[in-house]
């Protein structure tokens, strides 16, 4: 890249520009000192920014009304996942209305690219990407999230409820 040098007479009048810049800085400083509430800087990590619920952060497995996991282990998310980071082991549920459910559901967070394709693929709103994104961990093992972490981690306060309800669906005769 070539650097252009401005050698005109006009370029020597730089002081007014500097003064204007300092003026703006001063204005904001005074505003923040006298009106602390409207200051937009956050004291991270004590204060955190709330992302919108549509943000594509860590996955959440939703739950049914009774708190059981919503996922039916159809593996469409695993099929759709471009990073091949979802591993599901399905099994027969004792309740014939449920029929199939996951006994293990693991996402390798380090391989995930947070594309949200899993969420798109799920036919029953069982997986969502949530607003959390800060995921510190001490070693690699902490980054393979299992069902417990995906559905019932403390931040989710007992689980996020799915919008797809089997009972309502059965009642409406679908």
């Amino acid at each position: 890249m070539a650097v252009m040098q401005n050698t005109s007479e006009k370029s020597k009048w730089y002081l007014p520009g500097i003064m204007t810049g300092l003026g703006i800085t001063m204005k904001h400083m005074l505003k923040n000192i006298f009106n602390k509430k409207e200051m937009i800087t956050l004291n991270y990590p004590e204060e955190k920014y709330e992302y919108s619920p549509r943000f594509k952060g860590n996955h959440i497995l939703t739950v049914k009304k009774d708190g059981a996991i919503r996922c039916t282990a159809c593996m469409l998310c695993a099929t759709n996942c471009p990073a091949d980071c979802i591993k599901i082991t399905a099994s027969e549920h004792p309740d014939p209305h449920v029929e199939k459910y996951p006994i293990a559901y693991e996402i390798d967070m380090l391989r995930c690219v947070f594309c949200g394709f899993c969420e798109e693929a799920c036919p029953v709103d069982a997986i969502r990407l949530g607003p959390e994104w800060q995921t510190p961990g001490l070693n690699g093992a902490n980054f393979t999230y299992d069902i417990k972490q995906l559905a019932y981690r403390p931040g989710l306060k007992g689980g996020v409820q799915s919008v797809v309800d089997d009972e309502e669906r059965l009642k409406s005769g679908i």
Partner: protein
Amino acid sequence: MQQQPLINCTINGVALQVKAGSTIIEAMYENQQKIAHYCWHPGLSIAGVCRLCMVQIEGNPRLQIACNTVVTEGMKVNNTSDQVKDAAKWGLDFHLINHPLDCPICDQAGECGLQEQYMEFGKYNSEMSEKKQKKHKVVDLGPTVVLDSERCILCSRCVRFTDEVSKTHELGIFNRGDHAEIGTHAGKPLDNKYSLNTVDICPVGALTSKDFRFRQRVWFLKDSETVCNGCSTGCNVKVYFNKEGVFRVKPKRNDNINGHWMCDEGRDVYKFVNKENRMIKGHKLANGQWETELHAGAAAKDAATSLKGVSGNDIALVVTGQHTVEELEAIVSTFVNTYKTKNVYHWWNSEATASEFDGILLRGDKNPNTKGLQQVFAKHGINTKFSDLDPSKVKHLVVVGPENVPVYKDFTAKLEFFAKAANLIYMTSAKVDTLTTNKSLKSATIIPLKTYIEKSGTFINHAGVSQTFKKVTTVVSEALTVTEAAALLSGQEIKIETLNPKNLFVAANTPADQVTLDYRKKNEFTFQRGKL
């Protein structure tokens, strides 16, 4: 065989000659023409109930079903007109009136007739506003099969199978109209030796196999053809596998051997192929200590060292009919030529029941290649009786053990018998725990082998039909084939066939430039990469 007269007809504009008396669908099936159908199956009688196989016959004002209309001389048929497509679409809509659309949890999804035909003819929004008829789900039909009546389209294939092929008559259609359901009679579950064929022929996910249920989605599996090693019939099968192992076995049509079917026993043989049931490492017992982490090739070489210079009277070989002709030939000729002995014995678990036959497929001889073994023996002039073998007399005993251990009922007893030998060399693909815990062994080597799906070879079945099959996949990569083990035992090295190294890197062998578009060639990076 008497030649059947041929007649002329035109199907979708193609002039064909077909056997007199064949139906339109048979004519199309034999000439690889596509036609939607559910109830017709080449191995069963004609039912004509699904009404999906509609075709237009010139000169006939209405559409006809292809499966129950016999081809006549000069008939002109097509199944590509808009009228036929419309009929198939409406036929499909009626099939789906009460269908639960369970696809996400349905094992058939991915290979389902309804899904296929919907993508071909459907793609409509359902016109039904009524509630769906609820039926029984997850019905336990018997020890192997689970029924979901809601998914069933009442094609009656499964009923005809139990009536015509297995002749056990367990299944029937009960009730009428939209209450009709497949079911079994009270106290008579679907329990026969061929029951899982109903799962294969069910065009939808109504019948599912208990063994395969929910273990994999079918689109994660690859398939490949091989020959079943469950018994001496040698059914042609398709093995479904992925990197985690083998998951199921299905029959492949071969009119000379197994028709369209296979038995339930043969579907279980994949289990001994998977890693958890396999001998993975070579083992060696010396000075009372088991060395358990030996590489297969190292174990075989150790065994070869222990056999060096032994006289032909001190050594014996035991083989089973569970290995391919090529392998048996390799190991037997090693013994005949290198070790100069004819002490080769045939360990035959089912000699007494060998001639048994259940009238459909299953045979009493549970080895796929007994005939092949006998031919190899005859070729080398070996004429021994297993009862003459006395392991305590021969010092070095080499045993090529069976793959399918569960059918060797006297397996543990025989192992103890072999353990009397001063030096036992046991080759096996199956995990044998009793061997490493056997206290009477003095010196032993275990060489892990490959199973029948991991190698190419030939089986000769009960009728003398020789069937060559190709390798399907590799489950235990370091295991040896018997041929390789035989080469190592005779003191040779295993050779891997490669191109002549002189020819490997000459200019003529470099692949052509894969980048063909001019504007892409201008991009230097792509151009370079394309040449790599």
